[in-house]
């Protein structure tokens, strides 16, 4: 297996971007990544997108994407793992390069979510859950996360204030990110008093629906060395599945797929949790970041809430989490998220993150989840 390096990144600002189509968003991020890498062509592209069919009526994204950036007849592989689609794209891009099938690979994530109204988006996002066993009964996607939150609170004493602090921290970080959907501060009281979505979660516990795209360029070592640009090694990849229905899991307070994916990624990279300098975690809901901290071994089980409250995950904390603003503030165009996380970590490891730069960041981690953990993706990057 060949070592894999990231030589270029590109992102289009996330937000409610009514003047841009899915094609426009992909094109902007892809060209930015190609420019950053200093390459004109790629051998293949992998595009993560959850639901372009229901959101904009467009599937068959391979020719659309290749044509959008003038690279026909390059093969493009569209992959889907709900909100983990971007993480899956990164994983498959790694496999393309590591295996030797392709040398230069464009990894992309894109989602165009705001052409439909909120009720339609709720239905589309619920396709990440089990239609027969969960959604038939009226369960929404936030409701499943709410039931995990309640279980975590009752077992570990995690408080609504601790959940709120995740959102407050990520909004604080997002202020310094020009690509973020939301660049404004919020406080704990606002989170706690926000309109309820599914108790104990309110609207400010939930990531927004956003439009956006993010890309990176991967290649093997010899090409990375000749690129003459700062490169970052993609040192480990891990991917695991779990039951589609939440109720089929013995423990509602953790994400077993995340723990398994993390073990694979840490093992491949030869890195243990204490060496992580900066992490981008999947805070689709505030509870998800707390559970992810625990499942990734960054804190002990049950300590995600207290660690957040103590500031351990703040930009100047022991292990800064979501310097980009995370899904909560950077925004959550579902298929783009897993790739946007990688873009942020590459920028952090290059020292190019501006006002949200984590000091002396050498090793970074991304954690992307499909559904309520039916899929989890963990990637580890190291500065060269």
């Amino acid at each position: 297996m060949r070592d894999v390096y990231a030589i270029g990144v590109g992102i289009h600002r996330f937000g409610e971007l009514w003047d841009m189509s899915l094609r426009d968003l992909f094109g902007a991020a892809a060209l930015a990544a190609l420019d950053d890498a200093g390459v004109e062509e790629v051998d293949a592209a992998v595009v993560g997108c959850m639901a372009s069919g229901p959101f904009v009526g467009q599937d068959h994204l391979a020719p659309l994407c290749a044509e959008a950036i003038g690279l026909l007849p390059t093969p493009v592989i569209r992959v889907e793992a709900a909100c983990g689609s971007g993480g899956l794209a990164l994983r498959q891009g790694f496999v393309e390069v590591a295996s030797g099938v392709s040398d230069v690979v464009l990894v992309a994530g894109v989602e165009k979510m705001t052409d439909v109204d909120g009720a339609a988006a709720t239905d589309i996002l619920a396709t990440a859950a089990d239609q027969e066993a969960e959604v038939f009964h009226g369960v929404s996607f936030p409701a499943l996360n709410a039931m995990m939150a309640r279980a975590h609170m009752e077992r570990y004493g995690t408080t609504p204030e601790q959940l709120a602090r995740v959102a407050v921290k990520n909004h604080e970080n997002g202020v310094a990110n020009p690509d973020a959907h939301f660049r404004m501060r919020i406080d704990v009281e606002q989170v706690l008093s926000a309109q309820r979505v599914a108790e104990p979660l309110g609207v400010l516990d939930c990531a927004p629906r956003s439009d956006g795209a993010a890309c990176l360029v991967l290649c093997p070592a010899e090409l990375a060395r000749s690129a003459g640009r700062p490169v970052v090694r993609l040192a480990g990849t891990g991917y695991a599945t779990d039951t589609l229905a939440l109720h089929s899991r013995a423990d509602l307070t953790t994400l077993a797929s995340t723990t398994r994916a993390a073990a694979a990624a840490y093992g491949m990279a030869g890195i243990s949790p204490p060496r992580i300098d900066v992490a981008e975690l999947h805070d689709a809901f505030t509870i998800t970041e707390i559970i992810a901290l625990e499942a990734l071994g960054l804190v002990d089980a049950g300590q995600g809430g207290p660690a957040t409250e103590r500031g351990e995950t703040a930009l100047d904390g022991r292990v800064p989490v979501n310097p980009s603003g995370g899904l909560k503030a950077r925004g959550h165009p579902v298929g783009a998220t897993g790739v946007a996380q990688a873009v942020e970590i590459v920028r952090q490891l290059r020292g190019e993150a501006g006002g949200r730069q984590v000091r002396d960041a050498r090793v970074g981690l991304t954690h992307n989840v499909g559904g309520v953990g039916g899929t989890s993706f963990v990637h580890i990057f190291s500065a060269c």
Partner: protein
Amino acid sequence: MSEIRIWRETPRRYRLEASRCDGCGKLFFPPRPVCDACRGRAFSTTTLPETGRVVSHTTVHSPPSRFGGHAPYTVAIIELDLPPGEPCVRLTAQLTDLEGHDVHTGMPVQLELRRIQEDDRSSVIGYGYKAVPTE
């Protein structure tokens, strides 16, 4: 949800039909073609008990569109009352008839056949189980 699908999923919704692995006894609801515990492929159809306890719950304020007129409503993960030594079976259902009840983890419930949703086009009604408190 199409009338064909409503018909197809009837056995589990009306009768709580599950499958028991002939090899190791593990229960699957809904049935699966292979047992993940012992890799067995021979199963016997069995009917699950209609009582259980709330494992976790929430109130849905932003519902899927087919449930738009019903919010807010409560949904729960319920663990069914199986005899000691039996494998655990959980399912997701709405809680209903909650007037005067304080929903909490561990609350005992009974599953009853209720109207769940209606197909927009055919107006065929999808029936299934909802849980009502028993204490």
